[in-house]
């Protein structure tokens, strides 16, 4: 038979798993040979480790070492577009969950992941994403120990969704959480805010601007461990993702029942982020960040914390941006360069470009 006369056979009904044409097809999700091949060729080639390679349906792990507690976090990633300056959904999926675990003072060790693929999605793009996923795992020092892939019909999902769950051990004596902020504490941000939000908006391409802002997506666990190893009395760690710096601080203020006062001039914002926000009517304090952390600790330790962060990757531009004050209401205030104050609320709904 000539090439054109070859029957187009694919999917669960076909006994002969033919090579796909560079795209995900429903057969990849059937659990049969095609799935096996996809997992082997795309995933295992890039994510091999002792646990994953045993190829069982579940992973066998040892219990937490004595004095340590297990910390677990899970997250789903549906970012669109999949690729943006400075990152992609693969890197995001790893870093997002690694960071959530790290924000409780735990060192993330293991990840599980589910990949939901849409029929028609490009395998070449999938390979790039899994490369990025693997690289991020290496950088963070985490192992993927269990994974699953499923394929939906075309139109029933959006190219690729990834869900990750992360596991780590935290020192049992640590008391770090959003409810731990105390009056007199200093509020520190690890670097400039708003970059991720702008990078993704730019990648969507429909706002017609070129800023060359790169997403800050990064694993912050090493930074956190360095700070903990220094013996600092850390009260709160949180990464200001969706909703941005402002929303995250409002959450903390409410959880801890304190007020937080920010000094606007001290909040680091890169110039192109600032300019793009002015252009589109966005507020950088509400844009997502994927490689930044908020650190709240006693103010007499702030200088030490900054010194450590400035010498650690992803903390080089850390700054004190405000302080915690006693109260029972849980508000966040922003002091402007004019000496005036305004209250910051949580982001209500989606932030949209405005003309007004």
């Amino acid at each position: 038979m000539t090439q054109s006369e070859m029957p187009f056979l694919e999917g669960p009904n076909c006994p002969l798993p033919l090579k796909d044409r560079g795209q995900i097809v429903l057969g990849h999700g059937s659990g049969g040979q095609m799935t096996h091949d996809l997992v082997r060729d795309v995933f295992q080639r890039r994510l091999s480790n002792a646990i994953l390679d045993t190829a069982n349906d579940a992973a066998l792990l040892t219990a937490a070492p004595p004095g340590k507690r297990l910390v677990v976090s899970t997250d789903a990633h549906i970012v669109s577009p999949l690729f943006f300056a400075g990152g992609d959904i693969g890197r995001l999926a790893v870093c997002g969950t690694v960071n959530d675990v790290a924000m409780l003072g735990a060192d993330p060790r293991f990840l599980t992941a589910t990949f939901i693929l849409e029929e028609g999605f490009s395998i070449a793009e999938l390979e790039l994403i899994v490369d990025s996923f693997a690289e991020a795992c290496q950088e963070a020092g985490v192992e993927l120990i269990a994974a699953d892939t499923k394929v939906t019909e075309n139109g029933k999902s959006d190219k690729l969704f990834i869900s990750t769950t992360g596991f780590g051990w935290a020192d049992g004596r640590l008391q770090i959480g959003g409810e731990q902020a105390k009056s007199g504490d200093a509020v520190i941000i690890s670097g400039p805010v708003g970059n991720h939000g702008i990078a993704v908006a730019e990648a969507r391409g429909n706002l017609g601007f070129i800023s060359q802002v790169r997403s800050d997506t990064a694993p912050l666990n090493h930074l956190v461990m360095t700070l903990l190893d220094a013996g600092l009395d850390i009260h709160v760690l949180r990464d200001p993702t969706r909703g941005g710096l402002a929303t995250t601080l409002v959450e903390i203020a409410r959880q801890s029942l304190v007020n937080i006062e920010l000094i606007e001039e001290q909040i680091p914002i890169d110039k192109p982020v600032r300019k793009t926000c002015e252009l589109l009517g966005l507020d950088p304090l509400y844009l997502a960040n994927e490689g930044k952390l908020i650190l709240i600790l006693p103010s007499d330790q702030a200088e030490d914390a900054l010194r450590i962060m400035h010498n650690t990757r992803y903390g080089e531009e850390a700054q004190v941006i405000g302080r915690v004050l006693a109260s029972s209401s849980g508000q966040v205030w922003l002091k402007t360069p004019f000496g005036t104050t305004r209250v910051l609320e949580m982001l209500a709904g989606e932030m949209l470009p405005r003309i007004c």
Partner: protein
Amino acid sequence: MCLGIPGKVTKIYEQDGTLMASVDFDGVEQSVCIATTPEVELGQYVLVHAGFALNILSDTEAEETLKILRDLQEFNAGLTEEDRIQ
């Protein structure tokens, strides 16, 4: 109705029969329709709103405003502390 910021025209071209410009906002670039300010020249600043140039920055007028304000600042420097807003 009013979100508009000034940017510098760095390139002028035509797209689908419409007069367009590349406008630079301190490092951020946007393509802007200049059908509304067809006489603008390279290097001039335009006020941009909803992807259109609304008007061209007037150098001389801007200088005048600044002068008025600088005079005011000097005047204010002579005021007592009480008169100042804290």
